[in-house]
């Protein structure tokens, strides 16, 4: 991951250098950000309905959470199954990978959170304590803490370092189930069905509560960490300023009335994406708020989506299938093939 990150930075630096060289010329128009509008491949997960699909930290692998109690790890580029993790007692609802790809955590309707060892597929730890099904789970940056939000209205912070089976802390401020949860460096963002987005600032020791008035289905941080994105059951995605709570943007048009669906930001914060109950993924321009793309995924509800951490690549989950979307259709495929050949 770090290597990729470095490369990314390097290209950035080059860009800067170029710009500086061409200072005398009018600056070229910034490239129009590409949208993941081409279907690269479809993975039939064969694990019941896919409740959530997630990229790993570097975006090379994907995790699919199945309603048949299994969690599966796939290669994004080849679409092959790498590992199946079984140990949950009921459908898996969310999963996350650690920064070093050595561990996974997943949560389930069986009220447990499981920490997995990626390579062996063994259960490293099974964390019990939630009183209801666990909706969302997330590692912190260093994978030292697992945070899980449950329908019982609590967020529990589990220590992965110690062998205690009790959570470090229980955040029970939510008055209803916690539907979504994100972690940044020192902040914790939770969305609850009570219509409030809570941001726990560990550094300041403060809790900021933003009232949305509609049950929150998904919350996200923007990549720059200045904004939060919330989608709620009033079929609206809102972009809020993190520090003040003011609304910076409102994105509508999709349909999110009853299901817990995901939303996300593109990797460079240029677009806002949201699942919809009408079988599309809606993609808005972040600044303009205009609908840029209405990606037809299928006919059922698009349940989950995940954006690649650095590239223009999108995962969508509908029913039992996961679809991978990219910016360029053929080229990427060929690239993948080439890469594979090279590897061989």
């Amino acid at each position, binding site marked *: 991951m770090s290597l990729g990150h470095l490369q990314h930075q390097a290209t950035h630096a080059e860009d800067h250098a170029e710009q500086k060289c061409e200072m005398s010329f009018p600056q070229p128009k910034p490239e129009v950000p590409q949208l993941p509008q081409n279907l690269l491949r479809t993975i039939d997960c064969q694990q019941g309905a896919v409740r959530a699909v997630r990229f790993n930290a570097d975006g090379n692998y994907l995790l699919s959470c199945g309603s048949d109690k299994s969690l599966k790890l796939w290669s994004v580029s080849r679409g092959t199954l790498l590992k199946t993790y079984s140990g949950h007692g009921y459908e898996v609802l969310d999963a996350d990978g650690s920064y070093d790809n050595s561990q996974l955590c997943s949560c389930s309707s069986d009220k447990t959170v499981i920490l997995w060892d990626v390579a062996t597929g063994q259960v*490293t730890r099974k964390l019990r304590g939630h009183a209801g099904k666990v909706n969302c789970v997330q590692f912190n940056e260093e994978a*030292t803490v697992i945070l899980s939000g449950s329908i019982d209205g609590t967020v529990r912070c589990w220590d992965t370092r110690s062998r205690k089976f009790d959570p470090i802390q229980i955040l029970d401020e939510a008055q209803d189930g916690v539907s979504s949860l994100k972690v940044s460096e020192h902040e914790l963002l939770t969305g609850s069905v009570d219509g409030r987005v809570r941001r726990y600032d*560990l550094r300041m020791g403060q*809790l900021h509560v933003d009232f949305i008035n509609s049950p929150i289905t998904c919350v996200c941080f923007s990549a720059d960490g200045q904004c939060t994105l919330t989608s709620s059951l009033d079929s609206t995605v809102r972009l809020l300023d993190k520090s003040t709570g003011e609304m910076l943007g409102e994105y509508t048009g999709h349909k999110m009335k009853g299901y817990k669906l995901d939303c996300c930001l593109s990797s460079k914060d240029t677009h806002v994406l949201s699942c919809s109950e009408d079988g599309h993924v809606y993609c808005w321009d972040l600044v303009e708020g205009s609908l840029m793309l209405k990606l037809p995924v299928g006919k059922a509800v698009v349940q989950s989506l995940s954006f690649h951490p650095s590239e223009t690549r999108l995962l969508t989950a509908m029913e039992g299938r996961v679809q991978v979307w990219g910016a360029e259709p053929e080229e990427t495929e060929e690239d993948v093939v080439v890469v594979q050949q090279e590897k061989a």
Partner: protein
Amino acid sequence: MASDSDSDGDFVTFGTPLEPLEEDEPLRKPVPLHEQTVKDEKGRYQRFHGAFTGGFSAGYFNTVGTKEGWTPATFVSSRQQKAGRQNARPEDFMDEEDLGDHGIAPRQITTTADFASGRKDVIRDKARAITSLSAPIPGDTVLEDLVAPARSSMGVELLRKMGWKDGQGVGPRVKRRLCKQRADSGTRAFVSASPPNGLSGSQDEEDGEFVPENVTFAPKDVTPIDFTPKVDLHGLGYRGLNPLAALRGGPGAGHINLFTMDSDRSNSLFGEDRKGQRRRGGVAGQGFGVGAMEDDDEDIYHRDIMSNYDTVLGGEEPGDGLYGWTAPQQYNRKKKDHSKDAAYLGKILEGFTLASDKLETKTIFPPPNLPRDFRPVHYFRPVVDLSSVSPMVAQALQTSRGHMAQEEPSKGGRHQLDSAQRRELLGEATLQGPSSVFDLLKVEDRERLSGLRRPSSDTSSGPRQPTPGRPEQLCSGCRDSPAAARASAQKALSSRFTPHAEQQQQEALSVWSGPTAQAQTGQTFKPFERTPHKQARYDLYIDQLKQGDRDALELSLDPTMTEWERGRERDEFVRAALLYKPSSSSLSCRFTRGKQDDGVEADTVEVTRDQENDVDDKQAAVKMKMFGKLTRDTFEWHPDNLLCKRFNVPDPYPGSGFVGMPKVKRDKFSVFNFLTVSESPTASASPAPQGVKPSEPGKRSRWDVSGQAGNKERKEKDPVSEFLSVARIEASGSGPEASTTDGPTTDPTVEPDTEQKDEEEEEEESRPSMDLFKAIFASSSDEKSSSSSEGESEEEEEEKEEGVRSKAGTGPQISNQLNVNTTQPAPPVSTTPSQNPDVVFKMPSGPAAAPPPRDQEMEEEEFGPRLPPPSSTLTAERRPSPTPSAKDDKHKKKCKEKHKAKKHGKHKKDKKKKKNKRHKHKGKQKKSSRKEESSDSSSEGSDGNSQEDGEEGGGVSTEELLRRLKGIRGKNLQ
């Protein structure tokens, strides 16, 4: 598709995997000292012989390095390579241990001589000097030294490379010649710096040499500061006596001033001959007296003159400038100031003097900003002195926390004081107007109430001492006519207890004298555990009941108690006996009691200190899309210390003793916790009388909620709530008298065909917990819909309530309910459904093409946003092609969503109706009733959907569904 075994090949494993952690594996014990072992780097055990016998074992059984012994240096000699003389180095005799980090000759990185500064090899030089002395030819090495390359430090080498020459200073070259390159000797420097003829230096330079314009010079070399370390034990600056110099004497020896002041040093630099330096001999110096042989006693003691030093900062001249004025300075100044001030002000009136102290300026504080949700309504709480009422009443009051005077106000802190107490403390006058609900009562009602109170107060031990300053409205009336009051009390009691109590006693008797009760040996439930006497009496009562004694109640009661108290206890016992009758106690043995249930703190509950702002305002703000300040609340929140550590963040509140939000203790069942200031009278007067029964101070179990008989009568036992209800009726003036007097005991069979308000009130009276449920499960608009359903009989309502309860009992909502009961004193905050009516999905009407039965079961508990159902084909485990299945699915979902949307559209009313409906068809299966709901709403919404409804049922059987649909429509039409 790769299988699991294949996929293993895709991983690259680095390092040794840790042993998989066993769940609940016990922690490893530390190895005790005597079992700890030492191994060398090859893994061999090293035995410790003891410090004096060689330390650890080494080598081969303490002998040599290897089994073969020492390895000799191989002898090599050939024609080409003769065995030369081998110089044995010390290292040859060392083993690896000696060369190791902790050995005698550690191999570590050191500075080589080339890079070492000159000082380092002093020792080596010394050694060389010694060897030179002992060399066969003395001075042999001297030559060697001469020839040896000069060793200078790296810095010097570098400087040389850069063009530096010895004697020059370091730095950029300067244009103008500042001064001649000075030699090291101080005298020469002095000569050049200050010539005797007094000419300036520059002139001197110009005189000396011709300086071309374009020549730059290296800067002057700076004499380094001498950092000689202090090694002696003298004081700072003391140089000690040099015996050589002292004894040698003479002017050549120089001065023997041991302290070198600057002035002295300069003197010596100037070469001035001082008298003392012409001393003939002998030891002299500071601290040495003048010897007898000395002819002159000069300045042997160093004297420092204070005039050398500045005593005043800033060069101000000392004194106040008033030369010759001998008065104290302080006085002077004051006088002066006064005169000045007076002059400024002008003439001072006779008899007045100027104030010596300035008047303190009054600081005016701005009025406090009212919080946005502040409403200027004040509720005067009934002031009841605990000492003035009977212990029974006091207890009842305390459990309901009628904000009365406490026995120990100091214990509660200032937050526990009520307004009257605060007023007392502040010494304010009593407020005008009605300060208590009692003032609102009619005279006869008040008398009746005080009559109830009187007998108990009579028996209370010790003379009653009314607290001074506290209004005594309560007993004022009863003093006038004690007899009348007693009579009225008796009447009230008899009217209250007789009819119902009789019936209930019979019931209790029949229950407890049954065979099940007889079989039960130990009584599991002790409702009056907190008051042992009462419990003892209750036990007695139960025992009597078991024996089938008809007079069980009368026998078990304490005859010394007052009539009122006895009546109350009688009723309580009957109720408790009914509630915890054998059947339920056999059930209750399956449950464990809450740990923190009873205790002193049982009356209080911890609530977060910071409460959220008004939700209504926020909703308005959200509607106007004015996110930001209006919708944001910021609270103090304490993260766990360990969590901070894990997040690499400093603890924002180090040393704070708690985590989470700051909590404060509130009364758990205070009437006023549920008194939210709102317009609707029903909401404002919805006391929660749960705390009345001391037997259940904390959470109520499901069982006692459903204990209807007890429920009905409980209400009237709570004096405060009764007072309130009475007061409210009095205030409104519309309440019929009947409902106040025997309202609580109204038969449930009485038709609620009076006016709507009456019904509402009556409902409250008889079932106070309804408000609570409303607060939880419905919004305020629910009130209207309840009024609209006038036609319903009370039975139905009860059913409904039960339904709600049973639902709450199974689903996760029970936690919600408990929340409200225990932790949330402010219902509007916690009325989850009212805020998001669309959240609490009763049961998602799943597609008829059913997911597996387990699914169904789980989904019944579900609330919050749902998960999309897995496609039907998936669950059926056959996937002919994804497209058609998806199509089907979508259809179904669409239908559902439409229902859903409709449900959102008219949430409240529908909800209520649906509830009723559900109970009407209680007999039916739950699943089917759910189906009805959804189809019901759709049919109400638009008939166009009925087609789709039919399709929806495709999975089960279309006919069946249609049949049901029709049935429901028929019912609707009724």
